[in-house]
């Protein structure tokens, strides 16, 4: 893969084809766990791991998989990987595992993962599929972190609470700025509002850039003509 295509792949997952912002996949965990930055980071890492490994495995076995049974096989592979990731979390990050609760096992049902297996990994080489998994997973994880940080800061007036769940010691347990935030943002409706704001912000940014580029080209055309 050339450097340019690698760059394109990476940017696709993180920005142009972001699973959460553009494809709007995997919204159930996205909306449910993003009450804090640490939760978002935890689920983001778990999803990134599963997505990368499942893309790799699906791609590696794509020559033997007949079309009729591809979906059960994807589900089997994804479910096994999720179980492994869950066990690893339980063994090394028990606090984070408790804080994410049912949403780690529920990664199995994250349609972003099956979608990448079907759309990308089943048709591309193993390295390309792994890079696609990394990029899509990173895009999803970053979105979870941004929304988590926003909801935590605006809703609870704190940031990085529960950081001790990641490190396992109490040296740093997050910063708190006030007693109360805007309660609504912590409650489920706040998740929808936050996601809507994120999608709107992305679209506005893209449109502005496109417009800037278009006027740029017209100007240069005019100059040359």
């Amino acid at each position, binding site marked *: 893969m050339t450097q340019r295509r690698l760059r394109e792949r990476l940017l696709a997952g993180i920005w142009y084809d972001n699973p959460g912002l553009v494809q709007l996949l995997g919204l159930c965990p996205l909306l449910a766990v993003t009450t804090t930055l640490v939760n978002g980071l935890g689920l983001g890492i778990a999803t990134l791991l599963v997505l990368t490994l499942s893309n790799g495995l699906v791609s590696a*076995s794509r020559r*033997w*998989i*007949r079309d*009729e*049974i591809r979906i*059960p*096989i994807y589900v*089997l*592979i994804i*479910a*096994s*990987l999720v*179980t*492994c990731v869950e*066990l*690893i979390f*339980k*063994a*090394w990050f*028990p606090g984070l595992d408790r804080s994410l609760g049912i949403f780690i096992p529920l990664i199995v049902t994250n349609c972003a993962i099956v979608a990448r297996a079907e759309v990308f990994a089943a048709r591309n080489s193993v390295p390309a599929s792994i890079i696609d998994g990394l990029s899509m997973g990173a895009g999803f994880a970053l979105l979870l972190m941004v929304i988590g940080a926003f909801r935590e800061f605006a809703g*609870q007036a704190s940031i990085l609470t529960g950081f001790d769940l990641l490190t396992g010691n109490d040296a740093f347990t997050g910063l708190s700025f006030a007693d*109360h935030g805007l*309660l609504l943002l*912590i*409650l489920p409706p706040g998740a929808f509002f936050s996601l809507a704001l994120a999608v709107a912000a992305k679209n506005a940014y893209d449109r502005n850039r496109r417009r800037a580029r278009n006027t740029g080209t017209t100007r240069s055309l005019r100059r040359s003509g």
Partner: protein
Amino acid sequence: MSNKTAILRSGATLAVIAGVCTALVATTWHLTADRIAANDKALLEQSLQPALANTFYDGSVSESRLVLEPPHGLPGSDAAIIYRVYSGEQPVAALFVVTARDGFAGPIRILLGVDIDGVVTGVRILQHRETPGFGDKIDARKSNWVEQFASRSLQDPPVARWKIHGDGGEFDQLTGASVTPRAVIKAIRDTLVYFEAHREDIFAAPASKDEP
């Protein structure tokens, strides 16, 4: 390729992949099982500890677990758990895990430590879904509301005054939430009453064998 061979091939592929996946999960489980069991036990001991402030006791409280299936006379309609706490052979306290069913948003799981004389050693809320910013102040991580029960008993205050101030009782309420504290206080009071009536039975019963 005939239909039959196609089906056989698909079946074989599925079987092989299922085998590989099972091996993967089994290996991971094998590598993590001990750590997970140790984590669970440490977590349990650690979560019980705050309810046993100022009590001298021997470790591994978790082995004296007693599970009572409903109806058991304690608050809640799900199983209640009692941990017997000893210092040497001497029973010194009991820990109750009971459920208050009349909270604002679903059941509230409460951990209550009572010493042998019926005095509260500590209270912690284990599980709840009360409103963030209001009812969730019963959680020791959010406020020190639960601390007011430490070293209280059925004589201090008398049973009739185990209520929030607003209802003519002795205990602080929470701003914007009275249903939640009411439910918690009632569950604590009822557990103390139960302990007073069944003290001997509790320490005489053999430990429950089954795993949580």
